[in-house]
């Protein structure tokens, strides 16, 4: 036995190594399964994948790309939080600073373009699932989870849109949140809003409807910026993360990535 082999053996049989990896080198079917099953980062993943499941022409890998982009956006987003302050006073200048002065400020462009790409890839993923009929039983529930994830992606994109706090952002969010005025039974200009009143006093007005709660005021101002920041950085990513775990787990439970019939 050479010295290298001895060192190798010592290393792989050390308590440190064996406490982390509770299986041998994945060169047998059993160890290959254990490599996935006993790994916290892979445990949502199926142990084996059908050959068609990794055929690019079938899946386009759009789900995987969406998840990859989500990870990219999480990392770059957290990096941006070190420089960005979500107040009307600082927000715009911090974005300019990121662009002009901060080393590796390209992080902000990565975040922006990654966000655009994720919206596109999530849509394409949905399109592929629709075309291949993968929404059919037993995958109906996972389709529903996927639809919620699509909405969350759009909401993440929408809330992130306001954060640069420039004219484009403010007016885009003004226009976008005006839709909330027409929410049935919850927006003050929506259906049934005139029915919600106490005697002559309307209970649903511009200072008490769902848009007011969303913006923290009657129009897009500093409170709206802070609210969108919290939703963008904490609220929606948290919900999306939980639902993604469910989504991936259900892919496995529903029989893996759907294949050609």
């Amino acid at each position: 036995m050479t010295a290298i082999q001895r060192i190798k053996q010592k290393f792989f049989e050390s308590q440190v190594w064996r406490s982390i990896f509770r299986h041998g080198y994945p060169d047998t079917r059993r160890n290959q399964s254990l490599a996935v099953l006993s790994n916290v980062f892979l445990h949502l993943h199926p142990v084996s994948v059908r050959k068609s499941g990794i055929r690019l022409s079938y899946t386009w890998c759009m789900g995987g790309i969406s998840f990859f982009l989500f990870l990219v956006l999480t990392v770059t987003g957290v990096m941006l939080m070190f420089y960005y302050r979500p107040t009307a006073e600082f927000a715009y200048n911090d974005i300019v600073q990121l662009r002009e002065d901060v080393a590796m400020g390209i992080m902000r462009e990565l975040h922006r373009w990654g966000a655009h790409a994720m919206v596109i890839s999530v849509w394409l993923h949905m399109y592929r699932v629709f075309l291949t009929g993968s929404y059919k039983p037993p995958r109906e529930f996972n389709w529903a989870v996927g639809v919620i994830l699509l909405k969350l992606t759009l909401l993440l994109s929408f809330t992130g849109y306001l954060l640069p706090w420039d004219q484009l952002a403010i007016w885009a969010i003004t226009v976008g949140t005006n839709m909330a005025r027409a929410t049935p039974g919850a927006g003050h200009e929506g259906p049934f809003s005139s029915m919600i009143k106490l005697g002559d006093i309307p209970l649903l007005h511009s200072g008490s409807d769902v848009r007011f709660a969303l913006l923290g005021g009657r129009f897009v101002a500093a409170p709206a910026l802070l609210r969108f920041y919290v939703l963008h950085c904490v609220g929606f990513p948290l919900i999306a993360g939980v639902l993604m775990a469910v989504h991936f787990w259900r892919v496995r439970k529903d029989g893996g990535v759907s294949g050609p019939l």
Partner: protein
Amino acid sequence: MADLKSEIKCPSCGESRLASSFLTSKVSGQKICIACFRKEKKAAGASGSEAAKASPAKAETPKAAAAEGGEAPRAAALEAATAPAAAPATTGGLAAEGMAKCPACGKEMDVKRFVTSKKSGQKVCNMCYQAERKAGKADQPAPSAAAGAGAKAKPKPVAAAAGPHASAAGPVPAGAGGAAAPAMAAPGAARVRAQTVRLRSVDQPSGDVDRRDFLGWLALGWTAFTAASAQSAIALGRFMFPNVLFEPPSTFKIGYPEEFEIGKVDERFKASNGIWVIRSESMIYVLSTVCTHLGCTPNWLETERKFKCPCHGSGFQKDGINFEGPAPRPLERFRVKRAEDGQVEVDTSKKFQYELGQWNDPESYLVV
């Protein structure tokens, strides 16, 4: 003894307790309450008394002992198990294993599922027993012979279980009976225990909290939890509605009518309050600066005599009527009136829409 659910006095401590919690004392042989029984057992365990050591099965489930009908039959059964050759075959004609016919319904069934009927004293199958028990409950609210059985040595399941070594019907071959006895003793006793525990739970469930009470508390707990959760959800929802706004007030004074030039669009309050003030020959009216298309703010183009929205190109005339672009309706007007000090007062909480005929409302303009 009386009803299981009635309260009786414990002869040891003198407290009144539920009859179902009474057990036969190993010291006095009297029926005493479970608290005293436990105390007694603890004392026995501390002194390392021989009795406790000799019969581990006894200490195992003291609660059910009363329901079991006292110690006597159990002790007998244990003796039978350890010394099978001498034990009487009090099996009621049943083997410990195998199939037997139920005298009540006539079905063939595993003997392990047989229980002593309280009516006939015969061994009947579990299903018949349950039916009998149900019927008894419906007839008389408090039928319970088991707790008071006391000294009455009924042929209990333990006795039935002790059978294998004594009766020829058992799994042990008859010829091997005597010789194999010491070797078989231990597993035999273990089987007796396992079987008695199982049968007892069918026979007479007894305890400090019964199923009905437990479910009642469970329901109460969940109801309280749900109510508390709903309340916090409402509180969290309310949290999202701020009480103090850093926005301009909806009612404000903009100056005296003479300060507004006839035929001009006054843009002084556009940024601060979101209004244009326009004075014509005969009146003053106040237009909202919110485009009726998607809510952007149009600009007043003096040279072209029109409001033009930079977002999507909607155009409005000086009176607010839309004439180009995607805007579906005219700009809105706000309530305007003369304040007591003669100034013009605007109220942006009240709006007037042309398409609803509200511009004829005298509150929507101020005659000067």
